[in-house]
Structures are given as structure tokens and as C-alpha cells.
């Protein structure tokens, strides 16, 4: 299992017209070693920024983030080889016109030989039952099929860690269940943000993010309960942000 360490990590961005930078994440120190880690929290709480730190998509403005010792700023290439990232909207992620081509694109750096690359791409698609759809336009696929394809594209290069940013948000009930089962069968360490609290309950550890800080870190059931009470409190306090 990979070890992801955040030491006093913070992210802030300059905003036009405001003298002080806007703080997105503040003083996060974590050691992520569990197999299944969930990240829950309200919209705009900093979940996505936290996940993006892990793959080097966002660089910490304070502190450090390392994956198995590799710094996400100084050694971003090594980090991205170890950490695959799945976005909320698969159409933002799929770069090529068809599934087969997209998986092959993922493999272009690691597998130089064309024939071998094609075989590996076919195997990656087959693993998710997507081989019959391999040559269809990505626009002709259903939302669930696209999300599975995005997953296949990322997993084709066999990263040790899979980070998913709200992967079930755009899916219907059936496809959510399909995604849930697929994720359960993966050997990778999974770190996933979600609004689906049922999915969060499947996790070994859940982080609750609130206003750029970790409001709770612990077991899934207790974390979900904490999040529910936080949401209830903000509603009763008239805070509808």
C-alpha cells in the first residue's frame, strides 16, 4: 500500500480585487495509508483541492505533499505514474474520440511497441466489459460507460493509487451501483471524494472537510454522522452557502 503524506499543506489563491489571498486548504497534516479512504464535505469545502494535491494537479502553497517519498512539486512525473486521477465528468477526461484510442493514449508513454500497446489496451477495456464498445464514439456511450472508460484509461497504466473526484455525481442509480462494485473489486488504494454517503460508508477511513480544514478524520460511520450533524447545524444556523 502507498503512503501519502501531507505535512502542514495549504493552498491559497490570489483573487482579483481582494488584498488577501483566498484560502482553499489550511494546515492539513495527514498520513494516508488505508486501502479505501473517503473524503466528504459540502460544496466548496475544499474536497477537490485536497484530492488534486495528491496527484500534483494543484501545488501546495504551504507545506509539502509526498507519495511514497516523491514530492508532488519537485517530482511530479513520478507522482503521476503512481497516482491515477478520475474526474467527475468523464467527458472532461476522455481526450480521444473512441475508447480504444483513449486507452492507447494512456499507454503511449509506457508501452512503446504499437502491437503490445494495442493488446494491453484491449485487455484494459475487456476488464471492464468495454471491449464491444471500444470503437464507438465516446459521445455514443452512456454516462456509466463513459465513467468506466475513464477508469479503464487511468487503470491501464496500473497506478498504485486511484484518486476519484466525485465519480458518481453524474450517474444514475444503476450506474452508481455498477461503479461501486467495480471500485470494490480493484486492488489499488482508493481515495475518493463523494456526496454519496452510502458509498462513503464502504470506506475504511473517511475525512470530513469543512472550510478548507479537516473537521473529522476516522471511521466511516462516525465520519458520516459528523458530516450530517455539521450540515444540520449549518441549516439551522441559516447558513445556506
Amino acid at each position, binding site marked *: 500500500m502507498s503512503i501519502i503524506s501531507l505535512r502542514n499543506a495549504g493552498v491559497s489563491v490570489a483573487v482579483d480585487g481582494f488584498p488577501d489571498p483566498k484560502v482553499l486548504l489550511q494546515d492539513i497534516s495527514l498520513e494516508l495509508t488505508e486501502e479505501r479512504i473517503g473524503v466528504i464535505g459540502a460544496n466548496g469545502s475544499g474536497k477537490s483541492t485536497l484530492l488534486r494535491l495528491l496527484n500534483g494537479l494543484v501545488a501546495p502553497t504551504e507545506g509539502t505533499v509526498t507519495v511514497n517519498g516523491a514530492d508532488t512539486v519537485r517530482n511530479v512525473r513520478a507522482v503521476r505514474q503512481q497516482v491515477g486521477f478520475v474526474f467527475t*465528468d468523464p467527458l472532461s477526461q*476522455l*481526450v480521444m*474520440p473512441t475508447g480504444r484510442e483513449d486507452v492507447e*493514449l494512456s499507454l503511449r*508513454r509506457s508501452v512503446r511497441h*504499437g502491437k503490445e*500497446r494495442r493488446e494491453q489496451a484491449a485487455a484494459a477495456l475487456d476488464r471492464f466489459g468495454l471491449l464491444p464498445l471500444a470503437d464507438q*464514439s465516446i459521445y455514443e456511450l452512456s454516462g456509466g460507460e463513459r465513467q468506466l472508460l475513464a477508469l479503464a484509461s487511468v487503470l491501464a*497504466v496500473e497506478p498504485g493509487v486511484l484518486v476519484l473526484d466525485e465519480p458518481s455525481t453524474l450517474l444514475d442509480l444503476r450506474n452508481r451501483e455498477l461503479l461501486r462494485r467495480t471500485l470494490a473489486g480493484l486492488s489499488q488504494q482508493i481515495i475518493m471524494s463523494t456526496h454519496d454517503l452510502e458509498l462513503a460508508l464502504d470506506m475504511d477511513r473517511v475525512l470530513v472537510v469543512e472550510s478548507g480544514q479537516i473537521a473529522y478524520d476516522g471511521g466511516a460511520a462516525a465520519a458520516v454522522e459528523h458530516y450530517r450533524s455539521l450540515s444540520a447545524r449549518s441549516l439551522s444556523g441559516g447558513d445556506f452557502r
Partner: protein
Amino acid sequence: MRGHGFLLANYVPGTSLIHRMPLWLKFLLVLACGMASFLIVDWRLAAAALGVLCGLFLLSGAGPVRLFRAVRPLLPILLVIGAFQWWQLGGPVAARIVLNILLCVVAASLLTATTPLHRLLDGVVSLARPFRRFGADPERFALTIAIMLRSIPFIAGAFSDVRDSARARGLERNPRALVLPVFITTVAYARHTGEALAARGLGEPED
């Protein structure tokens, strides 16, 4: 988005002679057609060359629908160019210019309709390899072409979506209501694509 469904340069599987032709020969054919468009000065010759190329396209089994789809987006532009040239330089010159443009488009479509994208990208990588000594990364060339092929239909789709929403609000005659949202959508799309590539470690300099 409705308009995003079409693909630019989509491959039509087959086993025709043209499908089996080596990639370098197809590249050469496209290059020759590009050159011919400068060299052909008689519209009848341009028409004959286009006829031969269309014949080859149909022989490949890609079909007349794929051929028409390749040419259709250009038709309004060709109409404007043809009319302008007719007015300025007369009928034969206008016909030659329009036919020569079509010749290039059909040649490029013949290449993409009979060559899977991965082979096309491998070919681009091979062609760009000599530039490595000048610091160029051949994989980046291929990636750029792949992204271009994916992005043009997206932008066309974004335009059709924005036009529909402008029409629904009665703003179809307002150019700002059409151009600005397409511009913003396109910039957002470019950002998302960049992030998606970065997340997969693509487009970074080679070791």
C-alpha cells in the same frame, strides 16, 4: 451536447487496397494532392483529379455518406470563395480554386477514413522523429493532432448548443450572446483537457 456527437476524421474499418496501403504512401498521396493544388492550372484537370480521388474513396468502401460528411462543413465557405473568385477572376479560375481545395480535403479524408488513429499518430511520431535533435518531442506532435481532432467537433457542438439557448431566449440575432459563451466554453474545455492530460502524465517532456 448535441453537436459533439460527430467525430472529425473517423476511421471506417475495412480491408480494401487503400486500407492496406503503407502509411507513408498515403501521406505521400496527401502531399501530392496538396502540391497538385498549386500546380494544376486547368479546372478540367482539377475536376479529373478530384474524380479519380473520389473514385478511390468509394473503392475503399468508406462510402458516399462519409465522403459527403467530410466535404459538407466546407460547402458554405467554398460557395463564398467560388462566388468571390468568379466575380474577380472569372468562372474557370473560380472552378479551379474550389476544385483544388476539394481535392486536398478529399485526399486528407481518404487518409483518415482508411487509417486508424493510433496508426496515424504512430506515423506522425515517426515523421517528427528527426526533429528530436532540435529538442522537439515527437509524442507531443501526435498528442497535438489527436487533441485537435477531438476539439474541433467539441467547439462545433458548443456553438450549436449556445445557438439553441440563444434562440430559446430570443437572442439569436445578438452576436455577443453567441460568441461570448462559445469562447468561455472553449477556454474551459481547453483547461479541462490540459488538466486531464496532466493528470495522466501526458504532454510532459520525455526523460
